């Protein structure tokens, strides 16, 4: 038993992968048309936002911090993007401008969080809780009620194919490449050192402050990507979008084997963790659990997964 635990150390994502395969098979049994391209694509479309947010959240948690404002960042980016597109008239140039504005918004939110926490030494949990309220308030300011449809060009591209391959699959592959890219930068090692033992990182001469800010900006960036995907899915603006993303992204990160204490884990694991969460809600949906029990089941599984993940990823 201890030998098993030993060999799994640092490869907790293998457990997550096993869980994912099992869930996939259960899902297949409940929903025989799961393997048709259209169903797979629609599943991926639903899962993608959480996958992206969870990837960003991983970097913050690896650095020993946490970001509870991701949901509000998603909402803010969404309303900024749709508003900019609406203002510029919905041509291709306008759409690109809207996307750029959204990405900049996400980065700015991350920078704001990072400066408060790494430079002004605010507590990460309550600070991102507070900034989440602020970002959410700003989203309501930009767009008070849901609406403001995006031009067809936007959502058709998102729902369609590029070079014969579904756009969502492109984005998924892009996310994998981004993970691989970051994993090979010295930054990630420095970030994990910062989250692992901050005094050691400091003593070794690492610039701990900018490293933590960088992690928050990555979280903001990936939240922005998630918001752009959600915008493609809903084809409109919604200032209350992404409410539950903070908790589910943390759950995905923990499920993927990343320690909440920081310093240990991987973004790839979180990607698998997010897919597991998506699969769980699929299974709950198709398992004919009465509607009124679905939220309870999801909540319980999330809590159990959190507890289990914390136990498995502990030293």
């Amino acid at each position, binding site marked *: 038993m201890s030998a098993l635990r030993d060999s799994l150390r640092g490869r907790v994502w293998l457990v997550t992968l096993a869980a994912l395969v099992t869930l996939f098979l259960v899902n297949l049994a409940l929903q025989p048309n799961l393997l048709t391209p259209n169903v797979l694509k629609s599943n991926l479309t639903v899962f993608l936002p959480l996958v992206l947010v969870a990837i960003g959240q991983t970097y913050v948690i690896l650095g020993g911090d*946490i970001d*509870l404002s991701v949901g509000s960042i998603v909402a803010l980016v969404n309303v900024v993007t749709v508003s900019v597109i609406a203002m510029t008239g919905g041509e291709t140039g306008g759409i690109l401008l809207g996307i750029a504005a959204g990405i900049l918004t996400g980065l700015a939110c991350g920078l704001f969080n990072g400066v*408060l926490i790494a430079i*002004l*030494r*605010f*507590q990460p*949990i*309550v*600070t991102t*809780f*507070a*900034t*989440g*309220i*602020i970002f*959410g*308030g*700003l*989203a*309501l*300011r930009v767009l*008070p009620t849901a609406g403001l449809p995006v031009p067809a060009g936007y959502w058709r591209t998102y729902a369609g194919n590029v070079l014969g391959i579904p756009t969502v699959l492109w984005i998924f592959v892009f996310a994998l490449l981004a993970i691989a890219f970051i994993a090979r930068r010295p930054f990630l090692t420095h970030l994990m050192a910062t989250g692992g033992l*901050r*005094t050691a990182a*400091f*003593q070794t001469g690492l610039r*701990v402050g900018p490293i933590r800010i960088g992690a928050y900006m990555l979280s903001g960036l990936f939240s922005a990507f998630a918001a752009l995907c959600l915008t493609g899915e809903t084809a409109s603006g919604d200032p209350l979008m992404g409410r*539950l993303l*903070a*908790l589910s992204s*943390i*759950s995905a990160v923990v499920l993927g084997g990343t320690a*909440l204490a920081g310093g240990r884990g991987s973004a790839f694991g979180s990607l698998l963790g997010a897919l597991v969460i998506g699969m769980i809600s699929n299974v709950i949906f198709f398992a004919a659990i009465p509607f*009124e*029990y*679905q*939220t*309870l*089941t*999801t*909540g*319980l599984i*999330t*809590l159990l997964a*959190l*507890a289990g993940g*914390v*136990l498995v990823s*502990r030293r």
Partner: protein
Amino acid sequence: MHRARTILTDPLVLAALSILVLLGLGEAVSPGFARGDQIVRLLTVSAILGIVAAGQSLVVIGGREGIDLSVGALISLGALLAGNVMSGQDGNILPAILVAGGVTFAIGIVSGLGVTVLRIPPLVMTLGMAGVVQGALIAMSRGTPSGNAAPTLMAFVNRPLVFGLPGILFVWALIALAMWFLLRRTTLGYAIYAMGSNERAAEFTGLPTRRLRTLLYGLSGMFAGIAGVCVIGYTGNSFISVGDQYVLPSIIAVVIGGISLAGGTGNYFGVVLGAIALTILQSVLTTLQLEFWGRQLIFGAVLLALMLLYGRTRQLRV
């Protein structure tokens, strides 16, 4: 001069001053805002927030990033349970309080065990627990509200009892006294401050910090449940997200009251003033016809400003 400055930065004085300023502001914007019956109404609303914030205070003073985000869901649960047990009958008020407080206490203990035994950060654990309770609420109510308050309870919360004040205000005063006694006259209270101030040192004096911390989350749950009973007494019936509006204010009231989010400081009297100040602020913002986003922005900014005053982490000492 120096003395004047220390008095002015005392959280109790700041909270009391802001109550006066906000009342004056409200009166200026809308004459009659600070009339006697209006103030009683504001105090009644404050009482519910104050009861929730009592539990939140204990968890925050206990330290180690203590916070309880499940209070919203537990208020809704308390209200739903109380409403169903009472079903409009005066004779069922006491059982309703016991059921609501007992169930929420048990759920709080579970959160506490997650925090102390599994070492899940309190914020994540209580947020997760909030999700579960929310799900349970949907399952229990099947989406439609049920249960209603007993007439005596409603009268107790809303109608003047003695000196023109409703009964709930006397309950709140009793709770404030009980909180003072708990924190200042029992070993548990001393232990809460000790472990919030320095958990290692507290363990070194022999305190069972794990057990005590678990208990704190139970107490926080119980206070939320009792607040739920008050909510259904205030409105007559409940809906499944009735408690959500109290989560954020309960934290801000605690911080306004001078309790550092780092733990180990503050007392409940400050929180009482904080709950009143916050309720008046909400009322003023509504009177000013500020939109929801503006109120959110002000809440977030107030929280950050208070963190700047009281809540910064200690510098990395190498």
